[in-house]
């Protein structure tokens, strides 16, 4: 099925470790986003991209990095994991002609211990 695919679904990291959360979409959407969801806090925007090679910070970018080398892929990198990064991470995509028709991935649940 077409959509946004996130891997892995679950991950436990130790403090100080690094990892990359993968996100891929097959809808040729130019906009892609990373949000984190914490209980009672809603979703907060970490980084976003308006096209290949173009990324920008969202509301909570500290401790994360992104890249967008292709239209399809938008990986999120955690360099030095901290307990404050324990969260559920959602990738989403949309296009300029979709009238804000976001498609969300199913999420990655990350625990840092």
């Amino acid at each position, binding site marked *: 099925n077409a959509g*946004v695919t996130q891997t892995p679904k679950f991950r436990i990291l130790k403090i100080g470790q690094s990892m990359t959360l993968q996100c891929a979409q097959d809808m040729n959407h130019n*906009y892609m*986003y990373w*949000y984190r969801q914490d209980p*009672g*806090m*809603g*979703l*907060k*925007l970490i980084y*976003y991209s*308006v096209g290949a090679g173009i990324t*920008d910070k*969202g*509301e909570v970018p500290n401790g994360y990095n992104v890249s967008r080398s292709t239209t399809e892929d938008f990986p999120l990198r955690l360099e030095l994991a901290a307990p404050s990064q324990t969260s559920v991470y*959602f990738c*989403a995509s*949309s296009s*300029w002609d979709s*009238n*804000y*028709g*976001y498609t*969300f*991935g*199913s*999420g990655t649940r990350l625990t840092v211990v």
Partner: protein
Amino acid sequence: AQSVTQLDSQVPVFEEAPVELRCNYSSSVSVYLFWYVQYPNQGLQLLLKYLSGSTLVKGINGFEAEFNKSQTSFHLRKPSVHISDTAEYFCAVSDRAGAQKLVFGQGTRLTINP
């Protein structure tokens, strides 16, 4: 900058009763407004959106919302709920800029009791 406040963190309702989930927003510019639903262990799905035109917006699964510019509100309603409506609901706002970024409220957990 925009902000969204969902006035109730939890709403318990009996099956077949009506429900209203409240959402207020703050913005210095014109906005677009959205309601999303999240079922357990899933991503978010769009329920409905207000971009322009009629202030009463109808969405999927029998939900509707009314945009009230003077009260800066976008409350979600359903006249008769079902067990399957049990989920978390998020109100979101966008400032109409090109990147289509969304600012989400804190969420309202709707629990339907038989």
